[in-house]
C-alpha cells in the first residue's frame, strides 16, 4: 500500500563528514578541486582548511528525501544554496517538512545544520513523485 503523505509530515537524516569523505567523494564524482582534498590549499584560499564538496551535502539532501519516499527513483528535484562550508568531522542534521502534496507530487523544505546549530544550506527544497 502506498503511504499517505500529508503537509506537515517531517523526516530527519543525520550524516557525518568523516575525515576522508571529501577525498572519497572526489574519487567518485571527479571533483578534485584542491580546496576539497588538500587542507593547505583550502587554507591558502582563505577557507581555514579543506571543505566538503557542496554537491556531496546536496547528495545527502537527496538521501534524506529518498529515504522518506522509500525509493531514490522517485526524487524529482533538489535545490539549495550553500551558505556555510561543511568540514571534515562535522555532523550534519537534515530536517525535512512536507509543504505540499499535489497531483502525486510531494514538496518539502529541508534544513541542514552542523553540530553547532549553524545552517550549512539555505532555501533547500526537494520534490518527489509519490503517485
Amino acid at each position: 500500500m502506498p503511504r499517505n503523505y500529508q503537509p506537515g509530515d517531517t523526516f530527519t537524516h543525520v550524516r557525518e563528514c568523516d575525515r576522508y569523505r571529501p577525498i572519497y567523494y572526489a574519487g567518485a564524482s571527479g571533483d578534485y578541486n584542491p580546496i576539497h582534498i588538500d587542507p593547505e590549499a583550502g587554507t591558502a584560499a582563505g577557507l581555514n582548511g579543506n571543505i566538503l564538496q557542496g554537491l556531496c551535502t546536496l547528495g545527502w539532501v537527496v538521501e534524506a528525501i529518498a529515504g522518506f519516499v522509500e525509493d531514490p527513483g522517485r526524487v524529482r528535484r533538489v535545490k539549495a544554496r550553500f551558505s556555510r562550508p561543511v568540514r571534515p568531522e562535522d555532523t550534519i542534521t537534515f530536517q525535512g517538512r512536507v509543504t505540499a502534496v499535489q497531483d502525486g507530487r510531494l514538496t518539502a523544505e529541508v534544513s541542514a545544520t552542523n553540530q553547532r546549530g549553524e545552517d550549512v544550506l539555505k532555501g533547500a527544497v526537494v520534490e518527489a513523485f509519490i503517485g
Partner: protein
Amino acid sequence: MALDKQFIGREYGPYRYTLGEEKMREFTLAVGGAKPGAGTPGEPPAHVSPLLHDARAAQAGPHGGLIAFPSFAVVFAIRPFSAALADPALNINLRMVVHGEQDLEFLDVMRPGDVMTTTGRIADLYERARMGFVIVTSESRNQHGALVVKGTWSAIIRG
C-alpha cells in the same frame, strides 16, 4: 571580480557520457558513507537503498533493475559548468571559486548503459558585494533524446 557580460549565452558541449554500473555504485556508496578500500567501493551502510547497488534486489524492485543515485547526474552534467569556470576567456582564479547554489531536476531515472549528452550555456554573469557570480544552465538527454536532467549551477568568485 569583474565579469564581462558579453560572455552571457556562451555555450559548452555537447559532452557524451556512458553510465557504468560500477561507477554508479561507487558514487552511491561514497555519498552514502561507505569506506572504500583497494578494489572496492566499500560496504553499503544500512540506509543506502538496495535499488542503487544490489542488482538482484533491484531486479525485483519498482524499476526492474539498478538505477543511479539521482545526484549521480552531477558526474556528467557538471561539464558545461566546469568548462565555463575554466574558460580562459573568463579569466577566473579557480582557487577563489566556491559553489553557491544548485538546482537539479530529474525527469527520469538513469540506468547502467544509458548514454547521456549534456549541453550548457552561461545564463548570467554579475557582480554583487565585490564578488562575481557565474550562472550556468545544463540539459542532459539520454540515448533516446529524452531530457533526463536539467541543472542550474551557480559559482561565487570570492574577490
